[in-house]
């Protein structure tokens, strides 16, 4: 299990490759990458992510451990950035490795749902129209009911 909370950019592809190559008994790897998204209607200048040092690492480790209890995983990787990012920059990634695809898919999906509403990160968007904290969506809280 590898969990990193960092301000620095990371290389999604390079991380995905080294994760996928780490073990010979891995048959299936699922990755998710969250990217700072721009929209034409309301252009985004930048996004700022605040977090709770100490609790963040702890919450992510607990979520990853729960995924490992629920599914047959060979490995889990979570990288999440904080600080200032511009559109197109990668915010975070998760990766799961398993012998078979069903476990890798379910675990990655689960990790994202829990990470979204249970890990202490907060996003602030700087737009031409103004600056505001991103509101949590009810659908994100509701998604936890799936598991």
């Amino acid at each position: 299990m590898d969990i990193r909370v960092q301000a620095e950019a990371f290389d999604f592809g390079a991380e995905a490759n080294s994760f996928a190559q780490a073990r010979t008994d891995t048959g299936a790897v699922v990755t998710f990458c969250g990217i700072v998204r721009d929209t034409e209607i309301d252009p985004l200048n930048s996004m700022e992510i605040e977090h709770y040092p100490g609790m963040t690492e702890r919450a992510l480790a607990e979520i990853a451990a729960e995924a490992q209890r629920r599914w047959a995983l060979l490995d889990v990787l979570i990288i999440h950035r904080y600080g200032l990012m511009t559109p197109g920059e990668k915010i975070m990634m998760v990766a799961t490795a398993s012998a078979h695809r069903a476990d890798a898919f379910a675990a990655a999906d689960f990790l994202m749902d829990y990470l979204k509403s249970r890990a202490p990160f907060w996003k602030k968007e700087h737009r031409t129209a103004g600056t505001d904290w991103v509101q949590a969506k009810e659908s994100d809280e509701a998604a936890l009911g799936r598991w």
Partner: protein
Amino acid sequence: MRLELLYFAWVRERIGIPRETVETEAQTVAALVSELSAREDRYALAFSDLTSLRVAVDQVLTDFDAPLSEAREVAFFPPMTGG
């Protein structure tokens, strides 16, 4: 009892500081919130709608009924928006 309080996102902005140390006899998170709200308007404003707030005691998410005995660090923040 000496408690370290932490504020994040718009809670931090409304209260105006990221953290502070307080002396309190509050037995629960809710009692601590009442004590702070009575202290100054900026706290009353930040804590005006508890349904839009989350609380962690010693870095574990909990609710406003949680006891504060043994607690060393209490953090207040809005619902999280990671990922």
